[in-house]
């Protein structure tokens, strides 16, 4: 039972990732898709940081009186990934705004419909 319960952090990451995946597939709204994508991203961050955690350890800042530190490597990777994720999110939102200007909509169905049926007809 203890062995079974030792993975709940991973499961939470998986649940969050699947909520994000569901939003990306099921929702037609482009902004909603981006929200789903950022949920998926944070789920991956959670997975990495969970792997780096050691029970009873402290934050990886070397100081007197501490010997056990959590793994700093995932922290480095995720720290940069968070700032990159907001930059890429900004690019996605900018594309959405540009699409809205060109098509007058942010719904996937309507955009595809407009692509199939040219406006001149």
């Amino acid at each position: 039972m203890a062995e079974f319960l030792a993975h709940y952090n991973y499961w939470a990451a998986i649940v969050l990732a699947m909520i994000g995946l569901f939003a990306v597939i099921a929702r037609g709204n482009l902004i909603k898709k981006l929200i789903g994508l950022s949920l998926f991203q944070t789920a991956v961050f959670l997975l990495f940081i969970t792997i780096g955690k050691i029970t009873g350890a402290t934050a990886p800042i070397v100081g007197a009186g501490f010997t056990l530190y959590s793994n700093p490597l995932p922290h480095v990777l995720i720290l940069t990934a968070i700032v990159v994720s907001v930059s890429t999110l900004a690019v996605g939102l900018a594309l959405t705004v540009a699409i809205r200007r060109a098509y007058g909509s942010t719904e996937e169905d309507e955009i595809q419909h407009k692509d199939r049926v040219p406006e001149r007809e």
Partner: protein
Amino acid sequence: MDRKEGRRAIEIYINIVLLFFLVATGLAAVLLRNLLASAMLLGIYGLLMAALWVVLDAVDVAFTEAAVGAGITTVLMLLAIALTERHEKRPSRPPYLALLAALVTGGALVYATGGMPAFGDAAAPAHRHVAPEYIARALDETGVPNVVTAVLASYRGFDTLGEVTVIFTAGMGVLLLIGVGARRRKEGGGS
């Protein structure tokens, strides 16, 4: 010893409570039709995530997440929603296929966690390669006690250079898509 055990138990409780809140806000952010409410929930989600990072010893990540996830992301989302639409339309087809895909993928991943080391296990493979070296040598080699900063800027400096380039490129992309580039095109095209 007893006090240490108690502190660990509290850490685990806080962790589980935060995870529940995260799943609840994430689910609500996806299910709500009002995009403005979704963006607000995403901000709360970022703040909860920052709290969780502190519990998981990732203080530098918590710092970044609190500034980015709860701050900048929400502002950008709100601005983008102000420029597009506030409400999401109902999708034309029911989402059964997406639900199935998410459940099957999720099930497979949960099954795969059986092969992962237990949460917080100090003997996990991830902690036995370069990480102990970084912790043991960072202060002597660089004079920087914060191992995260030492690894970020020195041991993995090439990685950071790449990330900075990505951020720079993303900024220029936004500028060309809806900033200077769009304005110039608008003036030139006359529409």
